[in-house]
Every structure is written in structure tokens, then in C-alpha cells.
């Protein structure tokens, strides 16, 4: 077995040192009834690299990679170009195979990355402080709601109908088991919604998404002010981090907490994970935050260094009184996010955002010209909704047969409802000829 360095001779001499005759002796505390005498049945024995590679490559071959065809899927997961440098650096063993930086003297690399990551997330969201990451955007959203409940000592969250249904469901799952109330607004693919009328004395927070799941972009400044007046926290969810390079950031709109998905930067589609949850708050809420935080300090020689800090919020110290049970987070995905953003810098990031928007406008113009297709949105960033004369899921299937990944049918997210709506995204990776091919194939399928 290529991963096991002990030789038979090593094993014998080690057993002798322990004064055990066989390795089975070391398992003597296992109840007899539960001891297996040999390898578990039903699984193959070990394989060489070549065989594993062959077998997994065959499985991979039974999928259609998004990059091999014109692809327009979004809805919380976006295909962007990731510079080669990102993966090269992430795969440096010193990053890839380190652990949580509990021993700061031998983890300054990871810690400085986290400090920079926290700063980048704060800048993008327009917030004061960000943590060192959550599992993903959806769990960040649920944690934001629970944090708002703690801060306000109230127990009711109002969830916008524009919130990604996976984020909504992640939050309502927690609500059911943890015991708080959620008011879920109906999906509003075309218009606005009156969130404020739902707010009462028990309301801890209002959760909105920008751009929302249908792609609409909104200014939530007025909502923020109204929430503040009622002592209700405004939580802004962002599923497309690149949008923060062009849109007014949530912090400037009065968000108290921002829960976002950072996959768009540095992280591949990966069939849905691992991704990286971003979590940012106003300064005064920092002690109620979930997750790890890295802070700046000095070492014994007075030099600047970094440590994990404010840990008394966390499970390993506070146990049943912790602000969250999270331990392992999304470290490597946060690293990828951070490297990609460092490469982009101010100019690259803001340009990338403008480019995404321009591509989406271009696509909307082309699709809007197809007979029977109606663009639902009057505003969007890089994603919008179209209304089709046929069920979108069917159309998507037909287009997939023509090797075009057309978008996400709203019915897939909304449990079979909104059948005629298709959510379509464009990024810098889509060429004009991709778009033309999409429009042409769509016209054929609809005719």
C-alpha cells in the first residue's frame, strides 16, 4: 500500500517495544461481537493509481463539463475564469496540508492570508468586519438570522421572496429545529414586495438578496433605514460576489449583516461544493459573530504577527454557549478567493464586474429577440429571468441534447412552481458566438 510507510519488520519491532504479540491485542477493548476477523466484505481491495484514475475518469466522462459547451447557468453558482496562478498557489503543500492555525508561530502564512481575506471581504461588502469564512452562502445566511435573533433577543425572521430557495430552506430547517419563526414571502419574479408590513415587535431581521434569485438588483437603503427605526437588523445576502465590483455595496445600503457566497472568485463549479461563505458585520456586532476571526498583534520581539482571536465566542471554549457550532470552515476556498482577488485588484475586479454586466445585457438583447421569449427583468447584474411559452425544464432538456446548457428552470428551485421561467446568467467566459448559438437553438426549440 503506497501510502503506508511501516514495513513488516517495523511492525514487528514496534509490537515488541509495546509488548504486544499481534496488532489484534491492541484492539482488545473492542467487544468481541463487533470485531471483524478480516477485510470488510462487499468492497474491492486496494488499487494502483492507474486503476483508480481509469475508473474515476470514466465516471467523470459521464458528465458534461460546463466549459465544453455554451453554458449559462447561475442561480448561486457561477462559472468564471480562474487564473492559472490561483490553483498553483492553493496547491502549495504548505497551504494545502496545514491545519487550522492553532499554533500561530508556525502558521503565520495562513494567518496573514486570513487577515487579508477578512479585509478583502470587508471592502467588498462595505462592512466593518468579516470572519475567516463559513461553509457556504446558504449556511452563512442561516447563521446571520440566528445571530440577529441573539442580538435583538427576538425570534422572527422575514425572508424575502427573492431569496435563493436553497438559502431559504437552509434557514427554515434551522428555524424548525432550533425553534424560531420565519415568515417566507412568496416568490416575486416580476415585482417588488412589501417586507416592512410583515415587521412587528417580535421581528429580529429582514433578509433580502441582491441581486435576487431572479436577477433583479435593488437599492435597499430605504428598507435599511426603516428596519433600523424598528430595531430590526437588515441582512443582505449576495450569491454572486462579482456583483460587488459594480453595485453599491450592502454596507452602504445600511446592512447590519452580510451573508454571501464567495465561490465566484477562485473556486470552480465543483457540482456545488466546496464553496466559501462570506460573513461580514458592523463593528458593534462583532462579539455575536459566528466563526473564526484572525487579529493582528505583536510577537515577543515586537514584530507584527497574527493570531486567531475573540475565540471565547466559539465552541471549543464556550461549548454549549457558543455563538455557533462551526469549527472547520472553508479555509482553502477562502485562500483561492483571496488569491484571485489579489490578482484582480481594484482595476481588474471592477472591470470584471462591468464586463459581466455587459455580457448579460448583450445576452438579454439576443434572447429578447427570440420569438415568444420575454425578458422579465428591468434591472439585473449578470443574471436575469426569461419567460418562455413552454415549460422551462423541458426547454433546458431539449437544449442540453443540442449541447447547450441554457440556464436554471425556476421550477427546479421552487418545487415545480414558476414552470415557464428560466434563470439565465452570463459571465466573462461567454463569447458572443456562444450567445448566438443559444439564441438560435432556443428559437428552434420553441418553434
Amino acid at each position, binding site marked *: 500500500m503506497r501510502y503506508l510507510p511501516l514495513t513488516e519488520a517495523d511492525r514487528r519491532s514496534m509490537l515488541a517495544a509495546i509488548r504486544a504479540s499481534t496488532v489484534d491485542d491492541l484492539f482488545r477493548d473492542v467487544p468481541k461481537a463487533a470485531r471483524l476477523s478480516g477485510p470488510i466484505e462487499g468492497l474491492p481491495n486496494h488499487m494502483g493509481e492507474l486503476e483508480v484514475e481509469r475508473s474515476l475518469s470514466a465516471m467523470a466522462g459521464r458528465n458534461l463539463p460546463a466549459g465544453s459547451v455554451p453554458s449559462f447557468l447561475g442561480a448561486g453558482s457561477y462559472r468564471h475564469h480562474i487564473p492559472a496562478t490561483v490553483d498553483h498557489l492553493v496547491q502549495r503543500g504548505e497551504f494545502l496540508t496545514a491545519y487550522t492555525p492553532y499554533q500561530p508561530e508556525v502558521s503565520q502564512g495562513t494567518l496573514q492570508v486570513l487577515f487579508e481575506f477578512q479585509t478583502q471581504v470587508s471592502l467588498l461588502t462595505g462592512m466593518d468586519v468579516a470572519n475567516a469564512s463559513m461553509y457556504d452562502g446558504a449556511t452563512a445566511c442561516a447563521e446571520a438570522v440566528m445571530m440577529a435573533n441573539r442580538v435583538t433577543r427576538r425570534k422572527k425572521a422575514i425572508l424575502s421572496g427573492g431569496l435563493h430557495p436553497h438559502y431559504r430552506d437552509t434557514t427554515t430547517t434551522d428555524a424548525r429545529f432550533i425553534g424560531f419563526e420565519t415568515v417566507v414571502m412568496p416568490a416575486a419574479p416580476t415585482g417588488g414586495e412589501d417586507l416592512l408590513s410583515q415587521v412587528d415587535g417580535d421581528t429580529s431581521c429582514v433578509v433580502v438578496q441582491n441581486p435576487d434569485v431572479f436577477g433583479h438588483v435593488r437599492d435597499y437603503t430605504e428598507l435599511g433605514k426603516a428596519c433600523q427605526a424598528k430595531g430590526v437588523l437588515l441582512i443582505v445576502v449576495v450569491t454572486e460576489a462579482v456583483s460587488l465590483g459594480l453595485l453599491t455595496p450592502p454596507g452602504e445600503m445600511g446592512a447590519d449583516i452580510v451573508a454571501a457566497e464567495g465561490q465566484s472568485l477562485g473556486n470552480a463549479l465543483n457540482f456545488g461544493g466546496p464553496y466559501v461563505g462570506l460573513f461580514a458585520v458592523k463593528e458593534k456586532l462583532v462579539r455575536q459573530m459566528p466563526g473564526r476571526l484572525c487579529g493582528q498583534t505583536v510577537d515577543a520581539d515586537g514584530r507584527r504577527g497574527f493570531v486567531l*482571536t475573540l*475565540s*471565547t465566542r466559539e465552541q471549543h*471554549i464556550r461549548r454549549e*454557549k457558543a455563538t455557533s457550532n462551526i469549527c472547520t470552515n472553508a479555509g482553502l476556498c477562502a485562500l483561492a478567493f483571496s488569491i484571485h482577488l489579489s490578482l484582480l485588484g481594484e482595476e481588474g475586479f471592477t472591470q470584471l464586474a462591468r464586463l459581466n454586466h455587459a455580457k448579460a445585457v448583450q445576452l438579454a438583447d439576443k434572447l429578447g429577440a427570440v420569438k415568444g421569449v420575454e425578458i422579465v427583468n428591468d434591472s439585473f447584474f449578470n443574471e436575469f429571468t426569461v419567460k418562455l411559452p413552454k415549460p422551462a425544464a423541458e426547454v433546458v432538456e431539449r437544449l442540453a441534447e443540442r449541447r447547450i446548457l441554457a440556464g436554471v428552470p425556476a421550477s427546479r428551485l421552487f418545487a415545480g412552481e414558476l414552470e415557464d421561467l428560466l434563470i439565465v446568467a452570463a459571465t466573462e467566459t461567454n463569447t458572443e458566438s456562444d450567445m448566438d448559438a443559444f439564441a438560435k437553438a432556443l428559437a428552434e426549440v420553441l418553434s
Partner: protein
Amino acid sequence: MTIKYTKDHEWVRVEGDVGTVGVSDHAQHQLGDVVFVELPDVGRALQQGKEAAVVESVKAASDVYAPVSGEVVEVNHELENEPARVNTGAETDGWFFKLRLTNPAELDGLMDEAAYKAFVEGQA
């Protein structure tokens, strides 16, 4: 003016019907460097033996219990900016809060300075 201690290492010094509360110098030593103190809101009614405040060092968060029942009338805001006062003056300017006693008889169940000293030595 009497100072009384609890088995949980809080002290209370009573003047009239107002008691000043903090943690003992012994407790401060055990905690190590105090980095944060969370104080109760003024006006809150506290029950003897129930959680009243939190004191944190880097690696531990400890609840501070109310040594006697009463209503919080003042808190030591200085601790919010300078938590180190708990280390340097646990039983003086590192006090946590003042409360108006609702049941002064509870004081009888607490230890005086000598008894507390003996109690701490007995624990070691």
C-alpha cells in the same frame, strides 16, 4: 461596611442598601489576563446565584453570578475599555456592578474575609 464572598469567588461590599460586586483577587489570578467583560443592563433584576455578567480571558469565558439578589443600579463602564482593571484591582476599581439589595438576609449565607481565605486555601 462589610465585604462578603461567595464560594464561586464573587465579592459584594454593602453600603446602605447598595452592594458593589466584583470577582475576588484569587479568581482574577486563576483567570489570567482578562480581555473582556460583559456587564448587565442597568435596571435588570438579578437573582442570587444566577448569571449576572461574563468575564473573559483569551482562552476562557466565565459567568459571574449575582452574590445576592437585587436590581442593577450602576455598572463599571471603565471595564469595557480597560478590562485589565480586573487583574490590577479585582477588589477595588475592578468592580463590575452595583445593585440595590432586595433581600439583605441573603448576606448571612456568605463568607467573611477570613472564612473565604480559609475556603480558598482548603481548595488548593
